[in-house]
Protein backbone atom coordinates (compact mmCIF):
# COMPACT_ATOMS: atom_id res chain seq x y z
CA UNK A 1 0.00 0.00 0.00
CA UNK A 2 1.18 3.51 -0.84
CA UNK A 3 0.23 6.83 0.74
CA UNK A 4 0.80 10.50 0.03
CA UNK A 5 1.19 12.89 2.98
CA UNK A 6 0.37 16.50 2.09
CA UNK A 7 1.29 19.15 4.66
CA UNK A 8 3.25 22.40 4.46
CA UNK A 9 4.98 21.55 7.74
CA UNK A 10 7.98 19.28 7.27
CA UNK A 11 7.61 18.27 10.90
CA UNK A 12 4.05 17.11 10.40
CA UNK A 13 4.96 15.29 7.18
CA UNK A 14 7.73 13.50 9.07
CA UNK A 15 5.50 12.51 11.98
CA UNK A 16 2.69 11.25 9.75
CA UNK A 17 5.14 9.41 7.50
CA UNK A 18 6.67 7.74 10.55
CA UNK A 19 3.23 6.60 11.75
CA UNK A 20 2.23 5.25 8.34
CA UNK A 21 5.64 3.64 7.93
CA UNK A 22 5.16 1.81 11.23
CA UNK A 23 1.96 0.39 9.74
CA UNK A 24 3.90 -0.94 6.76
CA UNK A 25 2.70 1.74 4.34
CA UNK A 26 5.09 3.27 1.79
CA UNK A 27 4.92 7.07 1.87
CA UNK A 28 5.56 9.95 -0.51
CA UNK A 29 5.32 13.56 0.66
CA UNK A 30 4.05 16.83 -0.81
CA UNK A 31 4.29 20.33 0.67
CA UNK A 32 1.03 21.77 -0.70
CA UNK A 33 -1.87 21.06 -3.03
CA UNK A 34 0.00 21.84 -6.24
CA UNK A 35 2.92 19.72 -5.15
CA UNK A 36 0.48 16.90 -4.41
CA UNK A 37 -1.11 17.05 -7.87
CA UNK A 38 2.35 16.97 -9.43
CA UNK A 39 3.16 13.93 -7.30
CA UNK A 40 0.03 12.16 -8.55
CA UNK A 41 1.17 12.76 -12.12
CA UNK A 42 4.77 11.76 -11.48
CA UNK A 43 4.42 8.92 -8.99
CA UNK A 44 0.98 7.58 -9.85
CA UNK A 45 -2.14 7.41 -7.70
CA UNK A 46 -1.55 6.14 -4.15
CA UNK A 47 -4.08 4.16 -2.16
CA UNK A 48 -4.37 6.83 0.51
CA UNK A 49 -3.74 10.57 0.93
CA UNK A 50 -3.49 12.38 4.28
CA UNK A 51 -4.18 16.05 3.59
CA UNK A 52 -3.69 19.12 5.76
CA UNK A 53 -6.23 21.94 5.39
CA UNK A 54 -4.20 25.14 5.76
CA UNK A 55 -1.40 25.34 3.21
CA UNK A 56 -0.11 28.18 1.05
CA UNK A 57 -1.14 28.13 -2.59
CA UNK A 58 -3.69 25.36 -3.05
CA UNK A 59 -5.14 24.43 0.34
CA UNK A 60 -6.33 21.00 1.39
CA UNK A 61 -10.00 21.57 0.68
CA UNK A 62 -9.19 22.72 -2.85
CA UNK A 63 -6.95 19.70 -3.30
CA UNK A 64 -9.68 17.29 -2.21
CA UNK A 65 -12.10 18.87 -4.69
CA UNK A 66 -9.48 18.70 -7.47
CA UNK A 67 -8.74 15.06 -6.70
CA UNK A 68 -12.39 14.03 -6.61
CA UNK A 69 -12.90 15.67 -10.02
CA UNK A 70 -10.49 13.10 -11.48
CA UNK A 71 -11.92 9.62 -12.01
CA UNK A 72 -8.40 8.16 -11.91
CA UNK A 73 -8.39 9.01 -8.17
CA UNK A 74 -11.69 7.25 -7.40
CA UNK A 75 -9.86 4.42 -5.67
CA UNK A 76 -7.78 6.70 -3.44
CA UNK A 77 -8.90 7.25 0.13
CA UNK A 78 -8.54 10.85 1.30
CA UNK A 79 -8.25 11.70 5.00
CA UNK A 80 -8.10 15.31 6.16
CA UNK A 81 -5.65 15.89 9.04
CA UNK A 82 -6.17 19.39 10.36
CA UNK A 83 -6.69 21.76 13.27
CA UNK A 84 -10.14 22.63 11.91
CA UNK A 85 -12.52 20.96 14.35
CA UNK A 86 -15.85 22.74 13.86
CA UNK A 87 -18.73 20.59 12.54
CA UNK A 88 -19.16 22.99 9.62
CA UNK A 89 -15.57 22.42 8.55
CA UNK A 90 -15.84 18.66 8.92
CA UNK A 91 -19.00 18.74 6.84
CA UNK A 92 -17.32 20.89 4.16
CA UNK A 93 -14.40 18.47 3.91
CA UNK A 94 -16.62 15.40 3.68
CA UNK A 95 -18.85 17.14 1.11
CA UNK A 96 -15.76 17.95 -0.96
CA UNK A 97 -14.93 14.25 -1.02
CA UNK A 98 -12.81 13.45 2.02
CA UNK A 99 -13.47 9.98 3.42
CA UNK A 100 -12.38 10.63 6.99
CA UNK A 101 -11.32 13.48 9.22
CA UNK A 102 -8.64 13.66 11.91
CA UNK A 103 -8.20 16.67 14.18
CA UNK A 104 -4.74 17.73 15.38
CA UNK A 105 -3.36 16.94 17.87
CA UNK A 106 -3.62 13.24 17.11
CA UNK A 107 -1.94 10.10 18.33
CA UNK A 108 -0.50 7.24 16.33
CA UNK A 109 -3.33 5.12 17.72
CA UNK A 110 -6.01 7.52 16.49
CA UNK A 111 -4.53 7.48 12.98
CA UNK A 112 -4.55 3.68 13.00
CA UNK A 113 -8.14 3.62 14.23
CA UNK A 114 -9.32 5.95 11.48
CA UNK A 115 -7.59 3.88 8.83
CA UNK A 116 -9.17 0.74 10.27
CA UNK A 117 -12.58 2.39 10.05
CA UNK A 118 -11.94 2.83 6.34
CA UNK A 119 -10.91 -0.80 6.04
CA UNK A 120 -7.35 0.19 5.19
CA UNK A 121 -4.80 -2.50 5.86
CA UNK A 122 -1.20 -2.07 4.75
CA UNK A 123 -1.07 -5.63 3.48
CA UNK A 124 -4.49 -5.69 1.82
CA UNK A 125 -5.31 -4.65 -1.71
CA UNK A 126 -8.64 -3.03 -0.86
CA UNK A 127 -9.25 0.28 -2.61
CA UNK A 128 -11.84 2.98 -2.09
CA UNK A 129 -13.85 1.77 -5.09
CA UNK A 130 -14.01 -1.74 -3.60
CA UNK A 131 -15.94 -0.19 -0.74
CA UNK A 132 -18.23 1.84 -2.97
CA UNK A 133 -16.45 5.09 -2.24
CA UNK A 134 -15.85 5.94 -5.88
CA UNK A 135 -19.53 5.88 -6.83
CA UNK A 136 -20.87 9.32 -7.67
Amino acid at each position, binding site marked *: MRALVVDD*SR*TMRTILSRILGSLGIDVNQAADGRDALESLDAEGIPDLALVDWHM*PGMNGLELVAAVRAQSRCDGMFVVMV*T*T*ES*EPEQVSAALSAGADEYIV*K*PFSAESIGEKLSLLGIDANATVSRTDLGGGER
Partner: protein
Amino acid sequence: MTTLFTEDLVTEITSSVWTAFLPEEEGILPFHAAPASSTLTGSIHISGTWNGLVSLTCSAEAATRATASMLATPPGEVDPSDVLDVVGELVNIVGGNIKGLLPPPSDLSLPSVTDGSLHVDTRAGAELLVDVHLSWMDEPINVAIWERVTSEEA
Protein backbone atom coordinates in the same frame (compact mmCIF):
# COMPACT_ATOMS: atom_id res chain seq x y z
CA MET B 1 -17.49 35.70 24.13
CA THR B 2 -14.01 36.45 25.39
CA THR B 3 -14.82 34.72 28.68
CA LEU B 4 -14.44 31.50 26.69
CA PHE B 5 -10.70 31.98 26.96
CA THR B 6 -9.57 31.04 30.44
CA GLU B 7 -6.07 30.34 31.64
CA ASP B 8 -7.09 26.81 32.63
CA LEU B 9 -8.47 26.06 29.17
CA VAL B 10 -5.45 27.47 27.36
CA THR B 11 -3.19 25.46 29.67
CA GLU B 12 -5.22 22.31 28.97
CA ILE B 13 -5.06 22.82 25.19
CA THR B 14 -1.32 23.52 25.23
CA SER B 15 -0.66 20.55 27.47
CA SER B 16 -2.65 18.24 25.21
CA VAL B 17 -0.63 19.33 22.17
CA TRP B 18 2.65 18.67 24.00
CA THR B 19 1.44 15.30 25.25
CA ALA B 20 0.36 14.23 21.76
CA PHE B 21 3.52 15.23 19.91
CA LEU B 22 6.11 14.85 22.64
CA PRO B 23 4.92 11.65 24.34
CA GLU B 24 8.42 10.55 25.29
CA GLU B 25 9.13 13.76 27.19
CA GLU B 26 7.83 15.10 30.49
CA GLY B 27 4.60 17.06 30.37
CA ILE B 28 4.04 20.79 30.60
CA LEU B 29 3.77 22.16 34.12
CA PRO B 30 1.67 25.18 35.11
CA PHE B 31 4.55 27.12 36.62
CA HIS B 32 6.66 30.09 35.66
CA ALA B 33 10.09 28.98 34.49
CA ALA B 34 13.07 31.28 34.65
CA PRO B 35 13.16 33.72 31.69
CA ALA B 36 15.30 32.69 28.74
CA SER B 37 17.87 34.88 27.07
CA SER B 38 16.90 33.65 23.62
CA THR B 39 13.31 33.02 22.56
CA LEU B 40 11.18 32.24 19.51
CA THR B 41 7.56 33.31 19.02
CA GLY B 42 4.99 31.72 16.76
CA SER B 43 1.76 33.60 16.13
CA ILE B 44 -1.44 32.95 14.23
CA HIS B 45 -4.44 35.18 13.51
CA ILE B 46 -8.09 34.29 13.93
CA SER B 47 -10.72 36.28 12.06
CA GLY B 48 -14.48 36.03 11.93
CA THR B 49 -16.95 36.27 14.80
CA TRP B 50 -13.92 37.08 16.96
CA ASN B 51 -10.72 38.74 15.79
CA GLY B 52 -7.33 38.45 17.40
CA LEU B 53 -4.18 36.42 17.57
CA VAL B 54 -2.67 33.58 19.52
CA SER B 55 1.03 33.58 20.27
CA LEU B 56 3.33 30.90 21.62
CA THR B 57 6.72 32.02 22.91
CA CYS B 58 9.30 29.53 24.07
CA SER B 59 12.98 29.50 24.82
CA ALA B 60 15.27 28.61 21.95
CA GLU B 61 16.39 25.65 24.06
CA ALA B 62 12.80 24.37 24.44
CA ALA B 63 12.16 24.81 20.72
CA THR B 64 15.31 22.88 19.86
CA ARG B 65 14.49 20.06 22.28
CA ALA B 66 10.93 19.82 20.94
CA THR B 67 12.24 19.71 17.38
CA ALA B 68 14.73 16.99 18.22
CA SER B 69 12.04 14.91 19.86
CA MET B 70 9.40 15.39 17.16
CA LEU B 71 11.82 14.66 14.32
CA ALA B 72 13.70 11.94 16.24
CA THR B 73 16.98 13.79 15.67
CA PRO B 74 19.84 14.35 18.15
CA PRO B 75 19.54 17.93 19.55
CA GLY B 76 22.97 18.81 18.21
CA GLU B 77 21.93 17.92 14.67
CA VAL B 78 18.68 19.90 14.56
CA ASP B 79 18.36 22.18 11.54
CA PRO B 80 17.37 25.79 12.46
CA SER B 81 14.71 25.81 9.73
CA ASP B 82 13.10 22.77 11.36
CA VAL B 83 13.00 24.60 14.70
CA LEU B 84 11.01 27.41 13.06
CA ASP B 85 8.73 24.84 11.43
CA VAL B 86 8.06 23.12 14.76
CA VAL B 87 7.21 26.37 16.57
CA GLY B 88 4.92 27.33 13.67
CA GLU B 89 3.14 23.98 13.74
CA LEU B 90 2.74 24.06 17.52
CA VAL B 91 1.11 27.50 17.46
CA ASN B 92 -0.99 26.38 14.49
CA ILE B 93 -2.42 23.49 16.48
CA VAL B 94 -2.87 25.47 19.71
CA GLY B 95 -4.49 28.32 17.75
CA GLY B 96 -6.69 25.94 15.80
CA ASN B 97 -8.00 24.38 18.99
CA ILE B 98 -8.64 27.83 20.47
CA LYS B 99 -10.51 28.76 17.28
CA GLY B 100 -12.63 25.67 17.83
CA LEU B 101 -14.04 27.32 20.96
CA LEU B 102 -15.49 30.18 18.92
CA PRO B 103 -18.84 30.35 17.15
CA PRO B 104 -18.46 29.91 13.39
CA PRO B 105 -17.53 31.24 10.99
CA SER B 106 -13.89 31.83 11.86
CA ASP B 107 -10.77 31.61 9.75
CA LEU B 108 -7.25 30.72 10.80
CA SER B 109 -4.25 32.32 9.11
CA LEU B 110 -1.03 30.53 8.31
CA PRO B 111 1.40 30.75 11.26
CA SER B 112 4.47 32.97 11.35
CA VAL B 113 7.55 32.64 13.54
CA THR B 114 9.98 35.33 14.67
CA ASP B 115 13.00 35.61 16.93
CA GLY B 116 12.30 37.09 20.33
CA SER B 117 9.05 37.95 22.06
CA LEU B 118 5.91 39.28 20.45
CA HIS B 119 5.46 43.04 20.49
CA VAL B 120 1.81 44.02 20.15
CA ASP B 121 0.97 47.71 19.87
CA THR B 122 -1.88 48.19 22.32
CA ARG B 123 -2.35 51.74 21.04
CA ALA B 124 -3.56 50.20 17.77
CA GLY B 125 -6.46 48.55 19.59
CA ALA B 126 -5.25 45.24 20.96
CA GLU B 127 -6.16 43.85 24.35
CA LEU B 128 -4.35 41.04 26.14
CA LEU B 129 -7.00 38.54 27.25
CA VAL B 130 -4.97 35.56 28.44
CA ASP B 131 -1.29 35.30 29.29
CA VAL B 132 -0.32 31.82 30.46
CA HIS B 133 3.19 31.06 31.67
CA LEU B 134 4.17 27.40 31.68
CA SER B 135 7.25 25.29 32.17
CA TRP B 136 8.52 22.41 30.05
CA MET B 137 11.77 20.69 31.01
CA ASP B 138 12.53 23.76 33.15
CA GLU B 139 12.23 25.97 30.09
CA PRO B 140 9.63 28.75 29.75
CA ILE B 141 6.58 28.44 27.49
CA ASN B 142 4.16 31.36 27.17
CA VAL B 143 0.79 31.31 25.39
CA ALA B 144 -1.07 34.58 24.96
CA ILE B 145 -4.36 35.55 23.36
CA TRP B 146 -4.82 39.09 22.09
CA GLU B 147 -8.14 40.51 20.97
CA ARG B 148 -8.25 43.12 18.24
CA VAL B 149 -10.59 45.82 19.45
CA THR B 150 -12.22 47.95 16.76
CA SER B 151 -12.56 51.69 17.23
CA GLU B 152 -16.32 51.26 17.81
CA GLU B 153 -15.66 48.81 20.64
CA ALA B 154 -12.76 50.71 22.19
